[in-house]
């Protein structure tokens, strides 16, 4: 019996996203991937939980139904869950979009229900990011952290604990290279390349 040509474990899109075939993406039309994102197996993204309340009238454009937007070079490790947060807004319940910047790493089995995650953020494994948390740029969240709902984490912080507390600061002017996920991006996919020495 002739075997069908072996398919890779990942679907690679034109914009360089690598999405595992075993990822569970709900409501894909409402998920925006910024390009070069890696979505590992068993990741779940709830794009079906879209905003129902009209957004602030200033935009005035067509209804934007993006539920989850993630930037370039994001890395969602195995079993991560991205879930738009929901709350009562002007008397009705609505989900709100979850926005993630570039070079965001989300560790294994972490649940993210934040409102905003900035650029160059490292979230460890088995974390919980509570609803409507706001994480600014260049933040490191250590493994097992429980970020409570509505917490705002300033730039260059290191947080840990249950519930999360600020435990340190990243050195100002330190290199962003520690957060760069380009090499990690290249090391997965259908033709993974070994990391540079």
């Amino acid at each position: 019996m002739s075997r069908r040509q072996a398919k890779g474990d990942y679907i690679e899109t034109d914009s360089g996203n690598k999405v595992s075939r075993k990822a569970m993406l709900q409501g894909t039309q409402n998920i925006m991937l910024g390009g070069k994102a890696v979505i590992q197996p068993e990741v779940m993204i709830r794009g079906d939980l879209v905003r129902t309340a009209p957004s602030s009238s200033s935009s005035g454009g067509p209804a934007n139904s993006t539920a989850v937007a993630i930037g370039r070079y994001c890395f969602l490790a195995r079993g991560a869950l991205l879930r738009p947060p929901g709350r009562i807004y002007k008397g009705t319940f609505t989900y709100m979009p979850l926005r993630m910047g570039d070079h965001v790493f989300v560790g294994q089995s972490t649940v993210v229900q934040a409102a905003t995650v900035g650029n160059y953020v490292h979230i460890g494994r088995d974390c919980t990011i509570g609803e409507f948390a706001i994480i600014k740029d260049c933040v490191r969240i250590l493994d097992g952290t429980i970020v409570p709902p509505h917490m705002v984490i300033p730039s260059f912080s290191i947080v840990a604990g249950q519930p999360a507390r600020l435990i340190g600061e990243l050195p100002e002017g330190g290199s962003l290279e520690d957060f760069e996920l380009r090499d990690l991006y290249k090391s997965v996919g259908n033709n993974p390349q070994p990391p540079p020495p």
Partner: protein
Amino acid sequence: MSSSSKRQSIAPSSGPKPPVNFSSSLTIPKDASLTGHHSITILAETVIHPRARIDSAQGSVLIGRRCVIQERAQLGAAPGDRTSLSSTGGITLGDYVIVEAGATIEPGGTEVSEGTFVQVGSTIGRGAKVGKNCTITPKSVVRPGEVLPDNTVVFSNGQRRTDRRRVIDVRKVALLKQINVTRKMIRSDPDKFR
């Protein structure tokens, strides 16, 4: 192309199909998983999210009115956990119970009473009795057999205090609004489980 090379479903392999007793106003998507051989009863206006897992292998499961069971929640024994089949007993969830993503409720006569909020990734141990309007914060553990009085908050992995905010009625109204919005977003397919 022969059927053997067909793409395998990534849905968890279903064990025995349990007898179900569904309310007509239930929302349950087809990629939820119901297994076991005792009965599973789900009452009116409850919303089950995709990939929630309910297992009745060790006893019947009763889910009350207006509950929300989120994705990856595990009610009943985890797949592969067949160590304690001898100790049987089911799970009873009261009305207005929220079980968030990745939370586990172990079987064995476990009871979770009305208005309790089981948050992300927490665990309710075997045979525990959780009172009304409790909050189990993320990744907390309620030990097997433990009895929590009404309005208890479990936080910081083990600390307890009593919730005196008196927000029970507000919480119920908010949950009802959440259910009414969410049930429109999830395509319900209860016939798959019958």
